[in-house]
């Protein structure tokens, strides 16, 4: 795994924390990961495997206990303008319209307003939210709210897009549709994406590489390159190759007796 100067380098990263009762919990131990620029990586694993912790470490939102995380050769100690984040819930500000939510980076992050406004128009168009710019979040469906969340993460043109189970709260049909839309967005922008999910199908469908994590202690147990052609279609989920990749991921959870 020792490649030279990958875009994102995670070396021996660990995260321990102490619970209120004084017990020490190892959330992640000894994670090594190199990610090339423009790749779509999914982190998959059961709850407690530290996948969200790893994602937040890359974003600089959680301080690691040891090891190093760097993006483009720069050590990550705090959030930078180079990252965009999509959360599990859309996390929209209810008093701001769709457009005001999408361009929030210009108000709170000091991003260039004109660039943000231009890109907002472009991406809102791409995700089919034109005509909804002046609506408030409560007037949108869950799927549309999450589209706003994704657009917001992209408008300040980050190099890395971090996604923390963004489709987990959506219904199955909306989820399918948004997965395909995300692929289209990604193929157009070629951001480096790290996408956390607990759905094996979602992980295989979206990824260039699926990183499999296991809990207690949180660690990487496999790294599977998904060699399926793009753009991927929902029909491909039923193909034999897709099934083989899915079983290769699922194998780990059966072995560890983690699937209820």
């Amino acid at each position, binding site marked *: 795994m020792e490649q030279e100067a990958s875009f994102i380098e995670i070396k021996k990263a660990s995260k321990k924390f102490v619970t209120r009762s004084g017990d020490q919990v190892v959330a992640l131990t000894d994670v090594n990961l190199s990610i090339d620029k423009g790749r779509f990586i999914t982190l998959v694993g059961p709850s407690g495997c530290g996948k969200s912790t790893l994602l937040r470490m890359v*974003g600089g*939102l959680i301080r690691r206990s040891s090891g190093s995380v760097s993006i483009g050769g720069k050590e990550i100690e*705090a*959030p*930078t*303008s180079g*990252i*965009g*984040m999509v*959360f599990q*819930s859309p*996390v929209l*500000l*209810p*008093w701001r319209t769709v457009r005001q939510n999408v361009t*929030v*980076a210009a*108000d*709170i*992050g000091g991003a260039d307003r004109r660039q943000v406004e231009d890109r907002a128009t472009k991406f809102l168009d791409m995700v*089919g939210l034109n*005509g909804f710019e002046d609506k*408030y979040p*409560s*007037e*949108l*469906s*869950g*799927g*549309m*709210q999450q589209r706003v969340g994704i657009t917001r993460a992209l408008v300040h043109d980050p190099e890395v897009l971090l996604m923390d189970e963004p489709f987990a709260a959506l219904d199955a049909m*909306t989820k399918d*549709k948004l997965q395909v839309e995300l692929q289209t967005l990604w193929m157009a922008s070629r951001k480096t994406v790290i996408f956390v999910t607990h759905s094996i199908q979602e992980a295989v469908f979206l990824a260039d590489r699926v990183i499999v994590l296991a809990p207690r202690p949180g660690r990487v147990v496999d790294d599977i390159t998904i060699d399926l052609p793009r753009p991927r279609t929902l029909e491909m989920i039923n193909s034999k190759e897709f099934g083989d990749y899915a079983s290769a991921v699922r194998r780990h959870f059966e072995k560890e007796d983690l699937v209820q």
Partner: protein
Amino acid sequence: MSEIISTSVHSRVKSPPRFRLPTPDAVTLASVIVLVMFLSAWEWVLIPLLNISPALLPKPSAIAAALWSGLFVGDLSTDIWITLQEVIAGYVLGSAIGFVLAIPVAGSRTAERILYPYIVALQAIPKVAIAPLFVVWFGFGMTSKVVIVALITFFPVFVNAVIGLRATPAEHDELFDVYNASAWRRFRYLRLPNSAPYIFGGLNVGVTLSVIGAIVAEFVGAQEGIGSAIIRAGFALDTAGVFAAITVLTFIAATASAAIQAIGRKLVFWMENPKG
């Protein structure tokens, strides 16, 4: 757009900011009928039947006459104006201090530990008991009343603002972390708008208290104002005059409360029910 808005659980469609004037419906009509029946029973059944003296309980018609003459002949309109000024000045002052003090208390545990005991102690003192002191310190004029109204309004606004400024959801804070937002921007774009529903809850409690505060302060010592008018009418056994002043007070308190609620609904349009 193939996605239909109404398929989602999240799609409670709310109308954007807008004033809605109440339309007379059956319920409103019914409550007006109840009032008319109550006043009629008072006027034509209760008083004549029990032969109650007007000095004890005047007829509604006598109260209306007293109100009319007070407003257009007597001094009641001057008294109303005085009390209104006291209420508005004290309310604005008390709310402003409550809000400003809430910012450090909500923002830092140290500030909270330093200030909170004194603020609670201040609230524990019955304002009626210390009202005479303020009259001694600030005189019989409006200043002593403004101070007492401010003191009474302060607390609900303060407490609600502290709760509201702290009520930011963790995931919103994380969003602001992602953008490395400064403390000021976090306050301006997140904590402040997020606390607005709570603050309006406090302002709404404060507005009715402020009218009570002004009247109590005037009872203690004043030459003018509605409270003073009630005292004067009472001494003159002008019971209809007392009722007329009480009617005005009720009207002022109800109108002020409705106005604050309307402003709250307009500014905090994203909440279905502003808290408090």
